[in-house]
């Protein structure tokens, strides 16, 4: 498997299958992501998009096929799982900030505990990241005191604090009020421009068209079509892709 992987393929998924009970959520999903690539995954709800990216950092366990992240095969081995998780950031639909910690503590917790970083150093890094996502003045507040858009930007900063090589976004704007979506997408676009490898599940077609290097269309647990945004929005091949695009555009 790994011998035919090219050097800069940072995520390799080969024939990944997953079942929830009798229901097959993923059917032989195969996808190779280059380093620094931005891949947007679209598809109707229930199509397995979220399940697919949650398999990549083992929030869900896949039952067949191979996943290799940055050369590390994702197996039952806890050390491999922890290594992959510390190289992979994830942003959730519901933010999932830690409500009992301040914004700054949310961001510094993992660097201090997992990377054994000095507290001062972690705080400096965290303030840098908060500047980057545009809310340094919220550092000492609790998540409950922030708007949804601000919380999601904190969540992005929290993931970046572990200096991940890959960022996974699971519908990062779906729980936000319309006027807050842009502030989060702007942060994501800025992140993409710095060369971060990103896998984004989203319904934001504008973002997909503008930022994605490739778009993946999933339906019924299968990857139906992969291509550049241009290809997708002008020349989609698959009937179901066309149907989906016609419904949402």
């Amino acid at each position, binding site marked *: 498997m790994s011998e035919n992987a090219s050097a800069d393929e940072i995520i390799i998924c080969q024939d990944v299958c997953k079942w929830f009970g009798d229901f097959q959520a993923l059917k032989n999903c195969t996808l190779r992501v280059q380093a620094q690539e931005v891949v947007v995954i679209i598809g109707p709800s229930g199509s397995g998009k979220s399940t697919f990216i949650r398999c990549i*950092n*083992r*929030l869900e366990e896949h039952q067949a096929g191979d996943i290799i992240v940055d050369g590390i095969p994702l197996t039952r081995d806890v050390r491999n799982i*922890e290594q992959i*998780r*510390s190289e*992979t*950031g*994830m942003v*959730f639909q*519901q933010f*999932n*900030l*830690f*409500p*009992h910690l301040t914004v700054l503590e949310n961001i510094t*917790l*993992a660097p201090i*505990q*997992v990377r054994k970083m000095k507290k001062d150093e972690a705080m400096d890094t965290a303030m840098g990241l908060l500047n980057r996502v545009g809310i340094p003045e919220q550092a000492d507040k*609790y*998540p*409950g*005191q922030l708007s949804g858009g601000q919380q999601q930007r904190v*969540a992005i900063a*929290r*993931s970046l*604090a*572990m200096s991940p090589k890959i960022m996974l976004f699971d519908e990062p704007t779906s729980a936000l009020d319309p006027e807050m979506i842009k502030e989060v997408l702007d942060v994501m676009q800025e992140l993409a421009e710095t060369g971060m490898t990103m896998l984004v599940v989203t319904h934001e077609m504008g973002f997909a068209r503008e930022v994605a290097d490739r778009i993946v269309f999933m339906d019924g647990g299968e990857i139906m079509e992969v291509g550049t945004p241009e290809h997708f929005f002008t020349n989609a091949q698959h009937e179901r892709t066309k149907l989906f695009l016609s419904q949402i555009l």
Partner: protein
Amino acid sequence: MTTAAGTPTDRSVLPVTERYTLLGWLRRNLFSDLFNSLLTIVAVASIFIVARLILRWAFNTAEWGVIPANFNLIMRGQYPAIEAWRLWLVIYLLGTTVGLVWRLIVGQFNTTARILVAIPLVLMLIPFFSMGTRLYLMITAVASFAGYFIAGYLPIQHRGRAASYFVMAYLVVMLILLRGAGADDGPMPPVQPILWGGLLLSLLLAFFGITLSFPLGVLLALGRQSKLPAIRVMSVIYIEFIRGVPLISLLFMGQIMLQLFLPDGFPLVDRVLRALVAITLFSAAYTAENVRGGLQSIPRGQYEAAQAVGLSTYQSTIHIILPQALRAVIPVLVGQFISLFKDTTLVALVGIFDLLGIARTIIANPDWLGTQQEVFAVIAVLFWIFSYTMSFASRRLERRLGVGQR
């Protein structure tokens, strides 16, 4: 929109609550219609009758002489009078430790701190106290001031950690002072725990019952959620067994059977210690179930976020899950601790002289026949004071931690 609903421009009208006079308030809250007026009259009449009965008993009938005469017994049981200075030292050090910790954790001399310092000073007013006792109470207040004062000058970086070291050091010193050491004619002869009694013993049993059962209960709650079947099954069996057995039977088992489970030649475990073991094991099972409730209230997203940033199971339990779970169950846990405090009276039935046990010996004393009412009234008030203090402290703690707010 009408004026009564309060349009934003109409600022001359006071808020609804402040617009009423006393008469208006009375009419609105107590005499708003015929039925409520009747209820008010009946309620006031009953309160008056009951209060008059109680006050008449308290001031005319009751023989309060039994309390000063047995005061030392109520406070410390059979603890030798000649060693009482050790108890006072324990109290002074308690004051100092509270002062130190207060400065380190709370940081300011606020209302609650003033109330705490006032307690020994108010106790000085109790009429039958000797001048010596009053002096010792005064020293207690001074000692707590001193602790607060000294803490301001200590070069301490990690305040929380320093505070917990002070508390632990205090507990060790306290136990050494209480228990004593060395020869029987030495400066601090041993006092067997079976001689500790009264309020002293009730508080010690409750305090150590709570502090020992709490970590055990948390571990059991986590064990019950464990992915490892052996740990989960053992936790479930333990919890369900203990919860199916009354505390009194555990206390009897502790007295009679504990020695059977220990290896041959194991020194005889003190009877008070046996009772403490039973109370701790009993309380741990209930703590576990309460904490489990808190654990179940943590959304799955919290576990996932902790995993996604790379925290290990242990790290996410310590830093993410437990802080939130415990915060959510503070009210339930304090309720449980209050009932544990009151449940310690059951040790009176296995021949240990806690507050209730002492009360029973006093009323059995031929000199004080017929004074049950007075003795039990005082015992009840003592229990109420400490239970209410716990409940009050827990409400303050909840407010400080913002339970139910974020």
